[in-house]
């Protein structure tokens, strides 16, 4: 059982001051060499995302790339580049090479997550409910009603992704269904707020915390299974915790946007979110440091998490006080 979280490699607790400024107040930060390598890799994976996805979107969903500087397409590329970066680290940790095929899988999975989130979040309540119904039908029957070009490209991305691996592998199929269930709960927490009113505040926070954990936890599990089907259970657990942290960082970055959209998340309900996030960040990095064998992949993963944390801290700081629902593009 993995339970020993006692080996603190942070000289000073990150939770001492929280994050009042735009740099994580942690004693740990990646070495210059790793930070610079991640910088280069992110540039490479943006290019790879564009090369892999542009032909697909040009053919099946040109409206998403309507203008060369389309913010939506840039968001897609940023998300996909991050997915590849995390995928690269996971693959190396498992002892494999993040080759072209795996990069392609990372791109397809990134596009799939981007479009799935878009369906759940961007078209209002009625559309969210309808997408929940249709995606459930797809997972349990394989049928997907294609009504517009965005749905067409989503279906094509999914079918190409499913073609890459045996989707009947027990863990992979459970991961896909659990990811859907977590997304469904996340949407329902906003759609059916009254249903959760009888819960006490600690119960509600616990539900929101688990929802945040499961959303990205199952997502990173599915990504890892598509990239390295034979990955060990011990690694799965550590990656799940990584996913949980990513979800919290993400929600912290979207704090003001989510409030404007009346979307309830653990990060926008908890008191002192910056301090809570700092604690989760520290605990997760300690866990990774303690339980992953020393490897280049582990350093890439930790370095990426630090970088992601920093960008979302900046986003949170920059967007303080905004009340509009316009989406902004950050790395």
């Amino acid at each position, binding site marked *: 059982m993995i339970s020993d979280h006692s080996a603190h490699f942070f000289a000073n607790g990150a939770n001492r001051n929280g994050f009042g400024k735009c740099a994580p107040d942690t004693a740990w930060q990646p070495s210059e060499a790793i930070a610079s390598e991640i910088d280069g890799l992110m540039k490479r994976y943006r290019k790879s995302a564009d090369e892999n996805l542009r032909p697909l979107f040009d053919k099946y969903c040109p409206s998403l790339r309507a203008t060369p500087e389309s913010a939506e397409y840039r968001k897609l590329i940023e998300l996909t580049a991050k997915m590849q970066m995390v995928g690269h680290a996971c693959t190396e940790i498992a002892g494999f090479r993040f080759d072209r095929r795996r990069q392609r899988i990372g791109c397809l999975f990134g596009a799939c997550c981007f479009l799935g989130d878009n369906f759940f979040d961007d078209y209002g309540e009625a559309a969210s409910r309808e997408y929940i119904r249709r995606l459930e039908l797809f997972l*349990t029957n394989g049928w997907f009603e294609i009504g517009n070009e965005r749905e067409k490209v989503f279906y094509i991305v999914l079918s190409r992704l499913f073609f890459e691996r045996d989707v*009947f592998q027990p863990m992979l199929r459970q*991961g896909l269904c659990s990811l859907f269930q977590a997304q469904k709960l996340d949407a329902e927490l906003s759609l059916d707020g009254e249903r959760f009113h009888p819960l006490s505040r600690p119960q509600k926070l616990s539900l929101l915390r688990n929802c945040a954990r499961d959303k990205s936890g199952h997502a990173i599990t599915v990504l890892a299974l598509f990239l390295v089907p034979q990955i*060990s259970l*011990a690694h799965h657990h550590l990656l799940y915790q990584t996913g949980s942290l990513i979800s919290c960082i993400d929600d912290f970055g979207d704090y003001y946007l989510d409030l404007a959209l009346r979307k309830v998340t653990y990060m926008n309900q908890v008191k002192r979110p910056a301090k809570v996030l700092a604690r989760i960040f520290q605990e997760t990095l300690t866990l990774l440091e303690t339980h992953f064998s020393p490897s280049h992949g582990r350093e890439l993963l930790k370095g990426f998490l630090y970088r992601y944390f920093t960008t979302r801290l900046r986003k949170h700081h920059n967007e303080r006080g905004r009340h509009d629902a316009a989406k902004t593009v950050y790395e």
Partner: protein
Amino acid sequence: MNNGNRNGEQNGLEELADSLALRVQELRSNGLVKNTEALLNLDYTSQAAQAPFLFDIAGGVLHRNGCNAIPNGSRSTLYALPELREGDEKLACPICRPQSAPQPKVQAESASDLVFGIISFVDQFSSILRERGKQYRHSHRKKPLVARIEKLISWLRPFRTGVRKIIGE
């Protein structure tokens, strides 16, 4: 074969597979299959009930199915496992102590299910497919498609022996 050719061929195959995937969905939207007929079911709930092990991926603990020590908050993070692999026992729950042993087989989908699935489709829609085939034979779209299919067949050749074994030919 140079990279350009290989990429071109790969793209051609992918587009062919895309068209096929889209066509398959049209079967339902055109009312050619019943709403109750499933094409693909990824739900593992019934198989999970029979699986001997449950892995709490958030807690990093491996349980026997039915272990009372599984925390309530972990219901959404359990993965049912039909068998254990080397090293998994390090994550064993100290209460139920799951161990690798010969387990009754959990009914699993296999390649043969896919093959029989395809056969059932072909069987069910043979008359429609035959009619479409006749129309296609005389259409101007035939030539490039034939070339693609020949490539697809040569690409599939290594799998043929395996498929024959599965269907008991």
